[in-house]
């Protein structure tokens, strides 16, 4: 358990350092995830403790957004200024992104399973 937590933090740390040094446009934890993924591929299996820690973290993922979410409070003024275009843009674009992604992916999956037969 302790080793697993240390491993995850080490991956994140290595990610952060690399991102800073190479001035990459995405955050350290994303690179840390890639590092851990490559490590797992090399090892070929997930160590027991690591599975437990990741299950715990991901099962409660929603909670982790609450502190940042409350920060919306600090932006009431900014959002209030353009609230109508903002809300319309967010609702329409999020709906479109969901629909387009689901439509394309299920069409491609269907196409593939048909060509496999």
């Amino acid at each position: 358990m302790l080793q697993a937590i240390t491993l995850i933090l080490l991956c994140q740390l290595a990610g952060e350092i690399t991102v800073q040094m190479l001035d990459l446009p995405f955050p350290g934890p994303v690179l840390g995830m890639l590092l851990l993924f490559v490590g797992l591929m090399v090892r070929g299996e997930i160590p027991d403790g690591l599975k437990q820690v990741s299950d715990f973290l991901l099962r409660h993922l929603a909670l982790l957004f609450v502190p940042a979410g409350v920060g919306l409070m600090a932006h009431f003024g900014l959002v209030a200024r353009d609230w109508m275009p903002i809300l319309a843009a967010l609702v329409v674009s999020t709906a479109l992104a969901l629909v387009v992604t689901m439509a394309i992916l299920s069409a491609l999956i269907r196409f593939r399973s048909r060509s496999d037969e």
Partner: protein
Amino acid sequence: MNEEFIDIWAFLAASPLLWLTMTLVVFLASLWLNRRLGGSMVLHPVLLSMALLMGILLLTGTDYDTYFDGAQFIHFMLGPATVALAIPLFEFRHEIRKLLFPLLIAGMTGACVAAASAVMMATVLGADRVTLLSLAPKSVTSPIAMGIAEKIGGLPSLTAALVLLTGAIGCMLSPLLIRLMGIEDDRVKGFAMGLSAHGFGTAQAFGISATAGAFAGLGLSLAGIMTAFLLPGVLPWLPGLSS
């Protein structure tokens, strides 16, 4: 008695313990309440917690910085949780590899649609330029989105707020759209939710199934990485932003 209470409150309100505990208590209460009310997504536990905590902070006259001093311990776990997404990705690596090409095509199109439609819609409705630039990266997980906004000349703090709203809206819309489109494949549901509603969508997808969660993690990473690389190049061609 009253004075004593004020003293204790003054001590507690300034300590990280109170707001850390309060966040957990409010979240657990929201989960319970959401379940009692039939699990409606309009009352998503995260949204409910946010609203309740904002209310508590406003009522007690506590500013966000004081709150965050305590809540940052929870916020910090976002980094390790992102790293931990490697585990479901690894567990589902065979399924992902089988669908690599469809996932890349759907992911790239979805990410472009999310950014372009948001900017165009807001342009038509007359939002100002800074709002537009802050709006473009909104479908991406907040640390990436804030970095992009800074790079293209938007307001990172406004982007952070828009990212959160997008996540919340995605959580409310996705069950409805999934039902309307008759999608039954958890891989498709999860991938679209992670791609269009980042961590919020991913959290919700883990509630559907482990498969949906793994594909949501993939959608989240793909949207983040692609938007980070593509958006700065694509943006000048969008109407309303050509300078």
